[in-house]
């Protein structure tokens, strides 16, 4: 056995080792997802229902208003909600409800014993799951396109920004919900608070309706929260209309929220883990 006993196992650089860990965790996550193929399909069917309802409602309203609502036609609504579906799926992260389960069931101890910050497990595991989701989304998006005829003509720059923005959105949502989930270390039943958060997100993110259709005050208010950078921005980055300046501003705002989220998680984590009582295990 040649493993060094001082804990610095191997000669891999820290970055390389972290990259290797992420790839292995993502791979494990993909294998796990394929263990339950039927569940993955049912999950996708569930994910289709919400945007299709929004799409049908808004397309109907647009038609009844002479084919357009606030600049949105049935074709642009179709583009918005088909892209919405991908963004929503990439946005799925470890939720605070999961934290309640972790703390109550005592399942967190095994992660705390590992020499890596536990947030990396969640980031890597959920990122791995996205690859499966994207594969499953493609035929669904194709079918919906044939039915609803989306009006989608992105530029190369928009495609590039969209690719960065969906992962930026993933990081923002992961960090914010991680920080929120850490409240569970103080009190294990905080579902009501989480529900309030998700309601605010629904209204101020562009998830329920495109931000352009919201009242002016709501649009202004949305700038003070991370929500719009996790839904409206990545969707609009691909579907438009959006200027080059707005694309770059959007990425900058995402970078800002990633920074804020990282600092908040680091600060709350230190205090939270000191309170960990390792319930039941």
């Amino acid at each position: 056995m040649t493993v060094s006993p001082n804990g610095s196992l191997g000669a891999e650089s820290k970055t390389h080792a972290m990259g290797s860990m992420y790839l292995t965790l993502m791979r494990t996550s993909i294998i796990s997802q394929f263990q339950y193929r039927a569940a993955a399909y049912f999950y996708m069917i569930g994910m289709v229902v919400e945007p299709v309802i929004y799409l049908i409602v808004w397309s109907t309203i647009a038609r009844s208003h002479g084919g357009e609502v606030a600049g949105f036609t049935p074709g642009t609504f179709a583009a918005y909600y088909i892209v919405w579906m991908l963004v929503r799926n990439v946005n799925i992260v470890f939720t605070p409800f999961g934290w309640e389960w972790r703390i109550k069931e005592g399942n967190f101890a095994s992660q705390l014993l590992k020499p890596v910050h536990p947030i990396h497990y969640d980031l890597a595991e959920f990122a791995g799951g996205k690859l499966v989701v994207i594969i499953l989304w493609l035929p669904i998006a194709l079918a919906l396109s044939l039915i609803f005829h989306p009006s989608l003509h992105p530029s190369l720059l928009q495609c590039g920004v969209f690719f960065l923005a969906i992962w930026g959105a993933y990081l923002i949502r992961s960090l914010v919900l991680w920080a929120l989930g850490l409240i569970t270390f103080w009190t294990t039943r905080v579902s009501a608070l989480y529900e309030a958060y998700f309601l605010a997100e629904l209204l101020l993110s562009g998830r329920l309706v495109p931000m352009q259709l919201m009242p002016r005050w709501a649009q202004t208010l949305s700038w003070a929260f991370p929500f719009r950078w996790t839904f409206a921005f990545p969707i609009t980055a691909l579907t438009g209309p959006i200027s080059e300046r707005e694309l770059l501003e959007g990425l900058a705002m995402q970078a800002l929220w990633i920074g804020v989220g990282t600092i908040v998680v680091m600060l709350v984590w230190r205090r939270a883990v000191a309170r960990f009582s390792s319930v039941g295990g």
Partner: protein
Amino acid sequence: MPTEPVVVVEQLGKVFQVPVREPGLRASLKSLLHRETRAVVAVDAVSFRIEPGEVVGFLGPNGAGKTTTLKMLAGLLHPTSGNCSVLGHEPKGRPAALLRQITLVMGNRNQLQWDLPALDSFELNRAIYRIPRADFLRLRDELIELLELQTLVDKPVRNLSLGERMKVEIAGSLLHQPKVLFLDEPTIGLDITMQKRIRSFVADYNKRYGATVMLTSHYMADVQALCKRVIVIHHGRILFDGALASLAERFSLDKTVTVRLADGEEIKVNAPRGEIAAATGKLLAENDVVDLTIEDAPIEDVIERLFESEPAK
């Protein structure tokens, strides 16, 4: 050359604030406005040291503070008072350099990926602990052989029996070749054969790698087979810390003489240690004895006597 202790614990304490509420609707409503808590002392100013390569049994009844102490040593819980260090590191900061060198196996907890074959979880541990691939493969195969896991590691963990899962858990926990093993009830719920196999594996690992082991178990057979030294804890305080043999000497005042007579009859006589020679002589003189054994009281009885000597708080 003197060596540094692997585990140093000084006046270590842990107090949990536990919510207290009387039963009933009225108490429920009252608790909305004012929540009462009670301080529960789980570990009370405990001190001990463990030298490299020692295998120490950590004994005590349920709720004595064994698991809480192990969790503090593994960095899972922050102490309320006192200090502890493991391999020169303070565990509460969970430094990666420490976590790479220790493991905590909890008999009732699953640390492997539930839906995947253990081999996938092993691979994950390789990446997390940054184990060079060649070393990983060598140690993995070694552990598979030693624990006879050949037919188990390619099945999803959820399909394994409790005993099989425990063996696989132990293998997964040792892939990074930890220098310190905290084993919390590693044989709980296992049949006798499996208990023996895990015991002999732990003994072998300790000899082969010079690892330090701290073990809690309700099965005294585990302790007797593995530990020369025991620490007995009760109500969060240490009642005894020393050699297992001296524990029996100190708290087992009686010995049992058993003789088998020529006609097959068996006679048992309990006598204080100081009078055991006279009692044996008398038995031999008065009977047609064909076989004779002198035994200490079972270790379970000794421990029970020790707990009884400590009044409940």
